[in-house]
């Protein structure tokens, strides 16, 4: 038989904190013991009042809200949604690729384009095309 001494540690606990066996044992004992039933009811009432406390609010000191708003205004990055940040990153990468590609292309064009008639390379149809020394050795 379960004694009050054995049940006492179980009385303050919520049901979800106990095993099924403990719940059953406590319920059985409380049904037969008026003193433990009173204790259990007091803990139950306490638990309900503590849960109500979550809805009670305290007004902070004057200036706390303003202080928070100033602080987050300084720290705020503007956009925090990762989807928007990813889209912005992709767009930035695309723009950077286009800019680099255009720069490379214009540089190649400027190399091909001669700056004056004296530097123009003339191709003579009947003359052999000059080849590098290494290719000739082979």
């Amino acid at each position, binding site marked *: 038989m379960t004694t009050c001494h054995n049940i006492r540690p179980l009385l303050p606990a919520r049901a979800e904190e106990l095993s099924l066996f403990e719940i059953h044992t406590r319920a059985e004992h409380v049904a037969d013991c008026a003193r433990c039933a009173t204790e259990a009811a007091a803990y139950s009432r306490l638990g309900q009042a503590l849960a109500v*406390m979550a809805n009670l609010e305290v007004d*902070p000191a004057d200036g706390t809200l303003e202080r928070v708003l100033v602080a987050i205004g300084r720290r705020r990055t503007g956009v925090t949604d990762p989807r928007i940040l990813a889209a912005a990153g992709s767009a930035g990468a695309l723009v950077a690729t286009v800019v680099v590609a255009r720069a490379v292309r214009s540089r190649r064009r400027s190399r091909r384009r001669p700056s004056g008639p004296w530097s123009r390379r003339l191709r003579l149809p009947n003359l052999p095309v000059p080849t590098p020394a290494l290719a000739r050795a082979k």
Partner: protein
Amino acid sequence: MEVDRELVEAAQAGDRWALEELVRRTHRSVYTCALRLVGNPDDAADVTQDVYLRVVRKLGGFRHEASFSTWLNRVTTNVAMSTLKRRTRRFAVEGAAVPADTRDPAPEPAERAEAIALARRLELLVAGLPEGQRQVLVLRDVYGQSTEEVANAMGLTPGAVKVRLFRARERLKAELEATEGGQVVALAGRRRATGRRS
């Protein structure tokens, strides 16, 4: 503390007004939770500010899997616990740590009036608990966090959380009964005699 999902999403998208509105609507709740955990109005104000700085950084990662208020409570818990770990000084938390102007933002239905009146009395008794017991009780019984969540937040084992919770509930019930029975003087004497065990 109820917050519209649309408001949170607007804040996530970078809407400055939405973010400020979010702070306006929730700052009392955050401050109250912080005050219950750190037990000091100045530290609670610092924690409140740090909570929102963290919210600005992490809001983009909030996926609406839990309610915003639950998420905000977890952030508040983590920031408060970090603050307590950094804090070197210890405050003597007496009943006066929680201001008396505790208010209920929701209308009071008749059947809840008694529970609310009791909760207001409890606020002072909870503030008088030893720090370790108070934090465990506030996180578990007031904010409904699981034993594992409380253990993680406080760096304790679940077993240690259960022990503190048991002591806190037992002590709180005894003190509540004493005050309700008009035995305030006897209670004060017993408090002095038992000292601050946690």
